[in-house]
C-alpha cells in the first residue's frame, strides 16, 4: 500500500478573518451548503424577476479549471454567472471581487465569502503578486473563476476596455477562458441604483478560448485581453 499523504487545507491555521481575505481559502461543507442555498434562491429570483435567458450553455467546459469572463454592469453579474454554472461546481466557483468594495467591512466580507465564495483582489495595489497566486491556484486544479476584466462596473452602459491583468492568469497555459455577454443588467441594476428594476436579462456564452501560445509577458497579456474583449463584444451583437 502506498504511504498516506495528508494535505491540510491550504488556509489551515488562519483565523476566520484571515481566511476570508486569503486567496488560498478552501471551501468546506458549511460554505458549500450556504453557497448552494444562495445559488438556489437567486436562480429562482433571476428566473422570476428578470426572466433570465441563457444561450450557449453547451460552450461551458465539462471540467474545471476555467475562467468565465463577462462585461460588468451590475452587482447581479457575478450572481447570474454563478447560477449558470452546473451544480457540481458549487464551492469550486470563485468570483474575483474588488477587495476595496466587498472586503473592507466585516459584514460584507462575511457575505461575500459565505454566500458568493468570492476571493478578494485589491485594485490599488493588487499587482503581480496576487495575480500570481491566483494563477498558481488555477493551475493546481479544480476551480473556476468568475472575472470582470473591465475592473469596475460600467457607469455609462458602454463596455470599457479589458485590463491586461487577465493575461497573467492564463498566458502559456491550457486553461480556457469562456467569454460571456450579459445583456440587460445595466438597465436592471446600474451602479447608480441600489434596488433592481424588473428588467429582462439574457446571457450569451461563447466558445472557450485557449492561450497556450501567448507569451507570458506584457505584450502577450495585452493581446490576450484584446482577444477576449473582442470575443465578448462579438457576443453582444
Amino acid at each position: 500500500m502506498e504511504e498516506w499523504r495528508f494535505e491540510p487545507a491550504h488556509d489551515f491555521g488562519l483565523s476566520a478573518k484571515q481566511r476570508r481575505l486569503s486567496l488560498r481559502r478552501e471551501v468546506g461543507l458549511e460554505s458549500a451548503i450556504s453557497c448552494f442555498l444562495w445559488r438556489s434562491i437567486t436562480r429562482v429570483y433571476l428566473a422570476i424577476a428578470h426572466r433570465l435567458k441563457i444561450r450557449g450553455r453547451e460552450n461551458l467546459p465539462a471540467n474545471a479549471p476555467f475562467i468565465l469572463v463577462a462585461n460588468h454592469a451590475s452587482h447581479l453579474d457575478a450572481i447570474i454567472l454563478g447560477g449558470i454554472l452546473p451544480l457540481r461546481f458549487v464551492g469550486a466557483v470563485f468570483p474575483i471581487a474588488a477587495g476595496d468594495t466587498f472586503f473592507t467591512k466585516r459584514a460584507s466580507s462575511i457575505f461575500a465569502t459565505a454566500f458568493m465564495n468570492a476571493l478578494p483582489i485589491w485594485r490599488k495595489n493588487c499587482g503581480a503578486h496576487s495575480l500570481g497566486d491566483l494563477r498558481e491556484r488555477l493551475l493546481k486544479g479544480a476551480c473556476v473563476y468568475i472575472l470582470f476584466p473591465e475592473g469596475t462596473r460600467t457607469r455609462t452602459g458602454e463596455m470599457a476596455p479589458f485590463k491586461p491583468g487577465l493575461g497573467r492568469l492564463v498566458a502559456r497555459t491550457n486553461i480556457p477562458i469562456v467569454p460571456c455577454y450579459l445583456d440587460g443588467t445595466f438597465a436592471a441594476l446600474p451602479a447608480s441604483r441600489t434596488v433592481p428594476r424588473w428588467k429582462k436579462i439574457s446571457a450569451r456564452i461563447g466558445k472557450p478560448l485557449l492561450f497556450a501560445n501567448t507569451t507570458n509577458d506584457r505584450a502577450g497579456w495585452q493581446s490576450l485581453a484584446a482577444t477576449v474583449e473582442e470575443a465578448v463584444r462579438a457576443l453582444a451583437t
Partner: protein
Amino acid sequence: MNLATRERLFGFRHAFDSPVTLWITIAVIAALLIAALIIWLLRAAGRSSDKLHDELVKRVVSWAVMTPLLLGPVLLGAAWTILAVAILSILCYREFARATGFFRHRSLSIVVVLGIIATTFAIADHWYGFFVAVPPLTMVLLAMVAILRDEPRGYTQRVSLGVISFLLFGHCLGHLGYMANDADFRPIVMLIILTVELNDVFAYITGKTFGHRKITPQTSPNKTLGGAVGALVLTTTLVSTVGHFVFAGSGVDTPAKLIGLGLIVSVAGQFGDLMVSSIKRDIGIKDMGVTIPGHGGLLDRFDSMLLVAPAVFHYIAFFRGFGIDQPARIFTGG
C-alpha cells in the same frame, strides 16, 4: 412524551436537584475567580512578564467563555446537553477534516456529518439499538459512496479517514451525549467533564514540578512520567471522592469500583491527549486550529474526552446502566 421525559429534556428548574451539581458549579466559578485573582496579584507584585501575563490572561478568558458553554447546556437540560455534544462533534470533525484534507472528499464528508446527525437523533430518541447501528451503517455508506468516484487509488485512505472521523467524533463523543438519557445525568456528566479537564491540568502541574523522565519524546516531548503518575493519583482521588456522592447507593458506589472509574478517566484521558498528538505529528502540524485563543483548536482542548466518554460510559453502564428507568424511543415509539 411523558412529563418525566419532558422535565429531563427541558426542565432547567431541576438544575440543582443534586447537591453535587451545585458544588461543582460553585467550585468551577470559584476556581476561575481565584485564577483571575492570582494572575492579577502576580501582575501587581511584578512577578509576571508581559508575555506570561498575556498568555495567562488569554487562557483564563478562554476558560471563562468555555465554562458556561460546557456547563450551561448540562444545567439547562438533557436536550441542550445532547445538542451541545452534537455541535462539539461536528466542530471537532471539521477541524480534523481540514487538518487531514479529508474535507475535499465532499460526498464522504456529507456521509460523516449525516452519521453524526443520525447518532444525535438516536441519543435524543433514547434508542440504544439505533445508536449502535449507526457506526456500521455509516461504514456501509462510506464504503459505497467512496466507490462512486471510480478511483481505486487512495480508496482505503478515503474510507479509513471517514470511519475514523465518524467513530471518534460522532460515536465516541456521542457517548457523552447518551449519558443525558439518565434521570440523574447532571452530576455524572459534570463529574466527567470536570475531571477530564482537571486531569490535563494535574498532568501539567505535577509534570512541571516532578517531571524529569520523558515518556513519549517522539509523540509529545512535554509529557513526563511525573506528570502522568501525578495526574493518575490526583484524578483518581478526585473522581472516587466526588463519585462517591454522585453514585451514592448505586452499583458503582464501592471503593474498588470508584477507584477503577478514576483510573479509567485518567488513563483514557491521557491517552486521548497522546492520540491527538500522534495525529498531529503524523500530519505534520502543531495545532489543530485557532478556535480557542491560548489553547489552539477545539481538538487540542477536548482530545482527552474522545477516549474517556465511551470507556466511562460502558464502565458505569455495566454496574448501574444508563437511563434504564427512562422511557425509550421517545419519538419513534415501539
